[in-house]
Every structure is written in C-alpha cells, then in structure tokens.
C-alpha cells in the first residue's frame, strides 16, 4: 500500500516538475504549489490521478513569516490516504484562485476562509461573508485580531493564580452599558450590503416573458422550527417550485476555532463536545486522533481504550441516527410520535454515557492516549443489554413502523436527488454520500483505531433521494449494532491498564489532519502545532457545514414544502455548522 502511494507520488512529482515542491518544514507533509499553477494542478489531480474528493480547504495565518496559507486535503472516492497541497501567498495581499469550478465542494470552505482570514479567492461565483455578519470589521481568525473579552493570547491566563483577581468578563467589557455607533451611522437606515446582494441575486433570474409570471423570493427562517436551529434558507420560487435556494448561516457562530487557539490542547476536548452536540463522543474521537498523530509514536494507547472508544463512537452513531430519523419525521409532519419512539431508545444510550463519562451529552470522555476512565462497574451489562437485546428489537420495530408507510414513501421518494457524481463533486459526506450510491466510509476507506478488526458492511443505497438517506441511516444503525456486538464480545479485560491521563504534554511542531466517520459524515480536525502549549491553528472540517453546499442543488426543481425534508435528510446540527 505505501509502495503504491510512493510510486503514485513519484508520478505526480514527475508530471509537475518545476510546478510543485515538497513541503519540507519539519512535521509537515504534502506539496507546495504556486498560486498561478493551482488550477492546473488541481484539475490534473482530479482528471489524471483520480483524486476527485476535496475533503477540506482552509486557511492558516503564519503571522511571523507574513504569509497566508491555504491547505487542501484531497482524497480518492475509492479510498486511500490524503494528498495534501498548499498555496502560500503574502499576508498583505492574499489572493488565491478559486477551485469552485473544479470542486464545487470548495464553495463554502473558500467563503469561510475569506470571511475568517481575509484570503480572496479569485473567480469565486459568490464571494461574500458566510459566518460573520455584513459590516463586521476585520477577519477574526487572523492572528492579530482580538476578540471582545480578550485577556491574553494563550491560556492559562495569569490573573487566575496565585493572585485570584476574580471578576466577571461582562463587567470589564467596554461596551457594557452604552454601545457607541460610529459617526453618521444609524442602525435603522442601514441595509447590509450582503443582504441586498443576496436578494437581488435571488430575484435576478430570467422569467418567462410570454406568460408574464413573476418569481417570488421566500425567506425560511432563521427562527423556524423546521430549520433545526437558527438557520435560514432564501428561496426563489416559480409558483411552488424552487428555482434557486441559498442557505444563510452563522447565527450561532462563536469563533470556536479562535477559542481553540487560545486553549491548550487538552482544553479543546470539552469544547469539541459543543460542536455537534448530539454526538459529542465522535467529536472527541476526531480531535484526539489529530493530536495523537502530532504526538507520534510516543502515545501508547491500550487495546481496551481503543475498544471503549469504538463502542462509544458506535453508540453515538445509533443515538444520532435515531434523532435524525425522528426529526425527519417531524419535518414530514408526523408530529412527535415517531420522534418520541426514537428518543426513547436514545435515552437508554444516554444513560450509558452518563454512567461512563458523567454527562449525557457533553461527554468529554476521550483523552490523548486513551479515555478518561475505565468503564464503571455495571455499565458493561447495560451495554450488552442494549446491543444484544433491546436495540435490534426496537430498530426492527422502527423499520416496521415507518419504512413501508405509503405517506412517507410518497413524500420522500425521488425528492432531493443527488447523483453520485454530484455528491462527490460537492464533497458530500456520510449518509448523504452513501445514499447516492458512493460506498465511501472513512472507517473502511482509511481505517483508524481498531475498525479493521470488525466485520461490518458499508451501508449504501443508490437513488440519492430523501427516502434512501433515511434507509441508509437505518442500515447504518444495524451495522453499528453488529460492530458493538463484536466489540463487546472481544473487549480485552485488564486492571488499571488505562493509566492516568496527563494535563500537560509537549506537542512537537508540525501539522496533522485527523478524521473519523462521524454520524453525520467525515469529521476532520486540522491542527497545526508550533511546539508551544497551544495549537497554532485548529480547524474543524464540519460535515454539517459542508453537506449544506449541496442543499441548493438538491432542492432545485422540488416543491417548497420539500425543501424542509431535504434539509432534514441532510441532518445538520447548527452548533457544528456555525462553529
């Protein structure tokens, strides 16, 4: 396998002699490409070498070198390891050619890099802010940008000990009592530029002049129960049919990544819980994998800890999919009966999480080199009871209850279709990708932890519609139960072998991209270390966020009422989308 990669890489190097160079910084991997060669390089990678799946594109601010870097992680949709390439541009005027024309999946990611880093992407069709609001000054992920309650660049802050200068951050906030607007600015008369651009863009679609019909722009959300949080969809309608739809997000943006750079490595673990708050164990998993990659071989993970990690991640997948199915049925109008049947099983899984980790949702259970603590007495039996008896029975019941229901089929079949080619191009991941007939699962394509020891199938369906996404989730629950049964039967016993986790460790300089197959799809963490106690860059490749890139494509041509269930079938969590 590694040999294959080596020859492959040689081919690439031979093909692009003079255009690319190896990234030779210590701890870094991949190639460096000049900005003017980027489009040619990416096109050839896709068309000649089969790297067709752009997983992650993000910026890094190297302030000391006065450089901005854009990092791309690209995969083959048939599996295998990543190819990493980077473009460095001067920090004063960062301009990079856009890759949206080759990989439409780069759309939101490039907009995010523009929004947070101020890197301009030339040729981007919709080049505007995505997470921050219009009129926001500056680009918050730049290293010299400071947030409102700014205290110091890195934790631990020294006001906490030994002085103990207790204070509320709110009291120190300069804008606490009287917000001052800039001169000649009245909030009542201010129309945000981006809003105007958004609406005029939505209305600016050619209408049929013979019939003299008119398009209507409809705003769904941000406060709407069917949007699963504060999320907004702006749709242009022709009658009831969607002509164009654009998602608007960022209402829950809290600059998670900036917080992550202020934190030490350890402190980030509980913060990852708050990304996709329905599957916190999986988030922990991805983050610790990334940091363990940076730590290298020095971290010895006991087998028992690896098994516990897999068991928890699979329980998380089941509970997340139950929630997704329940919420989808809510979106369909089957109010709360299916939801509650699903929640009932989820409660039992959360009971296990609570007993093991101490919290039902914000689990904070994984540590670098293992897990926080061994399974408390009694939990193994609880898990066996669920995995061997209750869940198989109840999932069959859920299947009997919903799958053949004629109303569900009528509403879901053929709605929100995404073809396999589109799904790959839009960098869709997880159940959305697999429902489109692409059997891509990180657990199988690029195995991590001990997933290679278990026997399971990659759930795949071929129609790419809402109904298949529902079925894929149901299949995945069954496969997860299979993994759980094997893991619970073969989990190694040991006394106190998990060791005691450490709170401080030296992370060598370098970069790492850790990814797991989270319940919503490929969840990646890109971490750059500079050798200090805090990460230099901490980026989350959020599946909920990137799956939304394809939302517009899925909704076009469908009815407005179907947009709700298409959104429900992607299964987003706004904590992760907006970060």
């Amino acid at each position, binding site marked *: 396998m590694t040999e294959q990669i080596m020859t492959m890489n040689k081919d690439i190097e031979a093909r692009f002699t003079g255009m690319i160079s190896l990234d030779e910084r210590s701890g870094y991997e991949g190639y460096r490409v000049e900005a003017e060669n980027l489009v040619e390089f990416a096109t050839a990678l896709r068309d000649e070498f089969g790297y067709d799946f752009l997983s992650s594109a993000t910026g890094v601010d190297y302030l000391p070198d006065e450089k901005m870097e854009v990092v791309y992680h690209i995969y083959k949709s048939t599996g295998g390891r990543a190819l990493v390439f980077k473009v460095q541009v001067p920090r004063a005027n960062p301009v990079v050619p856009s890759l949206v024309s080759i990989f439409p999946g780069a759309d939101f990611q490039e907009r995010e890099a523009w929004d947070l880093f101020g890197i301009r992407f030339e040729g981007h069709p919709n080049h505007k802010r995505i997470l921050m609001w219009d009129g926001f000054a500056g680009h918050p992920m730049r290293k010299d940008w400071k947030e409102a309650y700014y205290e110091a660049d890195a934790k631990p802050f020294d006001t906490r000990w030994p002085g103990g200068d207790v204070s509320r951050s709110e009291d120190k906030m300069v804008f606490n009592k009287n917000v001052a607007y800039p001169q000649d600015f009245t909030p009542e008369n201010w129309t945000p530029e981006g809003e105007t651009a958004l609406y005029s863009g939505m209305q600016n679609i050619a209408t049929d002049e013979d019939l003299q019909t008119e398009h209507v722009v409809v705003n769904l959300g941000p406060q709407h129960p069917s949007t699963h949080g504060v999320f907004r969809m702006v749709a242009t309608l022709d009658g009831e049919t969607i002509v164009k739809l654009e998602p608007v997000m960022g209402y829950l943006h809290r600059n998670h990544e900036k917080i992550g750079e202020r934190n030490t490595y350890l402190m980030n673990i509980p913060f990852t819980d708050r990304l996709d708050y329905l599957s916190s164990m999986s988030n922990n998993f991805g983050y610790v994998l990334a940091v363990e990659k940076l730590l290298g071989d020095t971290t010895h993970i006991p087998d028992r800890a690896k098994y516990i990690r897999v068991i928890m991640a699979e329980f998380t997948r089941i509970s997340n999919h139950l929630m997704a199915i329940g919420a989808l049925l809510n979106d369909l109008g089957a109010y709360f009966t299916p939801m509650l049947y699903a929640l009932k099983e989820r409660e039992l899984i959360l009971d296990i999480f609570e007993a093991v980790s101490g919290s039902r949702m914000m689990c904070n259970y994984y540590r670098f080199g293992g897990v926080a603590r061994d399974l408390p007495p009694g939990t193994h039996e609880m898990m066996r009871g669920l995995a061997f008896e209750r869940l198989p029975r109840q999932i069959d019941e859920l299947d009997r209850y919903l799958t053949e*229901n004629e109303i569900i089929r009528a509403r879901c079949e053929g709605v929100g279709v995404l073809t396999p080619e589109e799904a790959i191009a839009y960098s869709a991941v997880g159940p959305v990708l697999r429902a489109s007939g692409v059997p891509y699962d990180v657990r199988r394509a690029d195995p991590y932890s001990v997933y290679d020891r278990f026997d399971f199938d990659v759930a795949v369906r071929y129609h790419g519609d809402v109904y298949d996404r529902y079925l894929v989730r149901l299949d995945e629950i069954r496969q997860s139960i299979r993994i759980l049964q094997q893991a619970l039967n073969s989990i190694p016993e040991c006394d106190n072998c998990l060791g005691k986790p450490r709170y401080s460790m030296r992370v060598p300089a370098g970069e790492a991209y850790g990814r797991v197959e989270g319940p919503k799809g490929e969840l990646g963490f890109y971490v750059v270390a500079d050798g200090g106690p805090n990460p230099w860059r901490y980026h989350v490749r959020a599946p909920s966020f990137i799956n939304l890139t394809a939302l517009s494509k899925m909704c076009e041509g469908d009815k407005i009422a179907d947009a709700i269930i298409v959104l429900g079938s992607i299964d987003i969590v706004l904590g992760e989308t907006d970060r």
Partner: protein
Amino acid sequence: MYGKGILKGLGVTWKHFWDTYIDDIKWGKKRYHTEEGIAYRMSKDARGLFTVQYPEEKLPTPEEFRFVPFLVYDEDEEGEQVIRCTSCGICAKVCPPHCIWIERSTNPKTGRPVPVPAEFYIDVDICMNCGFCAEFCPFDAIKMDHDYELAVYERLTNNIYDREKLLKPAAYYDGIRPLNSQKEFDARAEKEAKKAASKKKT
C-alpha cells in the same frame, strides 16, 4: 395492497398505547414514584410510557455524574476543618473556560506561601462541567458535585461561589462517590505506607 404500510405502522402505535396500560395494571401503583419503578422504566425491558415526572420523580445520578465542582474538607479530632486544597493552582490552569480563581495565602511573618487557599472562587455561570479540575487534582481536594438544581433568580450576585459556599465535608463526598473515594483512600494509604517504609530504611 395500498395502505398496508400505514396499517402496519398504526399497529405499532396501538401496541405502544396498550403496553402502557398493561404495564400499569401489572405494576399497580409501584410503577410511579418508587425507586424500583424508575429503575424499571430506565431498564432495557421497559415498555410503554417511559417519562419521569420531574420534579416529583428524579432519575438516580450515577456515581460518575458531574456538575459544578466543590472543595472537600476533612475534620480533625477537634472538629476543625482541614481543607485538602493546597492552592497549587493546577485546577485553575487546566480549567477550559477559566472560571476558577485562587488566592494563595502567605505567612504574614515570613511572606512565604502557606498551602491553604486564602480565597477560592468559581464562577458557575461560566463553568462547563467538564470535570478536568477534579480529574487532575493531585490532592483529591476538588470534586464534581451531584447537585444539579442550581437555578437562582439573581445571577449577578449569586453565581460566583466563594470558598465558604464551595466547601463540603469529606463524608458528603464519600456518600455521593463511594467507589471513587475508596479507591483514592487506598491510594493515599499506600503512598503513606511507602513513605513510612522508606523513612525506616534511612
């Protein structure tokens, strides 16, 4: 037959509906407001209605459950409080939202630090209940509580806990986390035995 799927689904709902009644009859009054009733509704064999009537009924908290830290103190022979905390500051340094402030006390004569916290504040508004402070405390001095009913009317005046409010006796800790406290007690005893043994040698 068209509509068969719907009928099948309605059959499932119908079964769920009856399960609750059958269980109610089977269990009599014991299904609600009793410990075994709640345990049954939390178990893998539970059928029918599974909701818990909070606050009349409460789910039992497992040992590892964590909510807002407290400080543990022992009592010596005279009943005086002996605070375990040595104000080493590890909890304040690992706390992700940085909600712990510790003021170290110094001996007024020598100016040297004394291993007792002069003040200890936790802003429970900011605390994210991650449990790192308890996990990494080398003296078993700060632990996570089981009391989750902390709602107050006055957030601004009530939610910065000081040392007095945070201190709880070791007996309380042993009560909520019997297994952990036993484990820690054994570890401490072992350490002391080792210390004594090495002293004897020299």
